[in-house]
């Protein structure tokens, strides 16, 4: 299954997902109270150190910061213009620490473990008469739909390319939407035929 998860068996992988989520949430709340750049440097060292314990593949994860470099550049420029350069550095360091820490949970936790860990949050749905299993079923449906849609899209695109020579056009979207909507109707029928999202066993 496609995900950010990095296969491995480090101590971070073995830590329960719920605990990791809780720690990241607390750390994020605390870091937002801090304004001094000097506090963030040790934090950054710790986070990068944690990535290092995952080995070379862990450190390769740091490249996700590359997508933010342009933003950081503009940010520094804006803070420099308003004469708050030091604050600009603090903000950037905080963002780096927060993003890296949150991402660390994602790369060391499998998606189903994560889903398992947050399922209790959906318990309140039952008070209103909805099944708490519906979000999980929704997740499964999306993961099955998305690749199938890409398949329909590439088939439409190949046909369009052989007709017109050009590769992409917004004109592909309406047939894509119509074909996919037909498919989703079939899936809804199939789901009902199998007892619906509540499942037969629960009734």
């Amino acid at each position, binding site marked *: 299954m496609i995900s950010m998860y990095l296969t491995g068996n480090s101590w971070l992988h073995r830590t329960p997902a719920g605990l990791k*989520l809780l720690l990241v949430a607390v750390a994020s709340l605390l870091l937002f109270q801090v304004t001094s750049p000097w506090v963030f440097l040790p934090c950054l060292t710790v986070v990068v150190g944690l990535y290092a314990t995952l080995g070379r593949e862990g450190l390769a994860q740091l490249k996700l910061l590359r997508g933010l470099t342009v933003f950081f550049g503009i940010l520094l420029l804006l803070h420099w213009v308003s004469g708050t350069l030091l604050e600009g550095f603090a903000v950037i360091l905080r*963002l780096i620490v927060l993003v890296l820490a949150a991402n660390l949970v994602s790369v060391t*936790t499998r998606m189903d473990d994560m889903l398992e860990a947050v399922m209790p949050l959906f318990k309140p749905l039952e008070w209103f008469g909805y099944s708490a299993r519906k979000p999980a079923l*929704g997740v499964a449906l999306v993961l099955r*739909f998305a690749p199938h849609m890409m398949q329909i899209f590439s088939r439409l695109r190949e046909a369009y390319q052989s007709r017109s020579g050009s590769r992409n056009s917004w004109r592909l979207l309406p047939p894509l939407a119509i074909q996919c*909507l037909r498919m989703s109707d079939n899936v809804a029928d199939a789901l009902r035929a199998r007892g*619906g*999202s509540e499942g037969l066993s629960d009734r």
Partner: protein
Amino acid sequence: MADRSLVHIAFYAALIAALGLVPPVAIPFLGGVPITAQTLGVMLAGVMLGPVRGALAVLLFLFLVALGAPFLAGGRGGLGVFASPSVGFLIGWPVGAFVAGWIMQVTSRLNILVAAGLSAAVGGIGVVYLFGIPGVAYMANLSLEKAALGSAIYIPGDLVKVVITALVVQTVARGLPGAVLSRG
């Protein structure tokens, strides 16, 4: 909630994911700012599904991203994106889809092309930036004006997406009228 609704919600969540995988297009006359198709999916979800289901579809999509699916444009995903400066836009998406769906419902007497364009513009641009700009300002400690200035480069691309949304919705309404659930 009927099973059919759940399937529709999952369907649009998957559509947002699939559109995120479409490679970004840099439009020369817009200064080469790359635009991704992802927010097109957010607009479509709201306009096609109506307020509640549209917002739920976007929430389901964001839930998958939070669980670690690399579904955001550029293959991003995981909890890290919710700590990044653009988190305000992500929060704005479900609200934007809700507003788009709501406008679509109250303008049910208007021509569908006009109504879809209006809904997508107000929900998909207005509301999304209403959340996105303060988000950038807060995460980056900038003034609102500076954050707005930095975000404005994406607005032309979003306007293109509004036009596409309107055209797609109109075509689907012709080909498969029952599919425009916001008008059902």
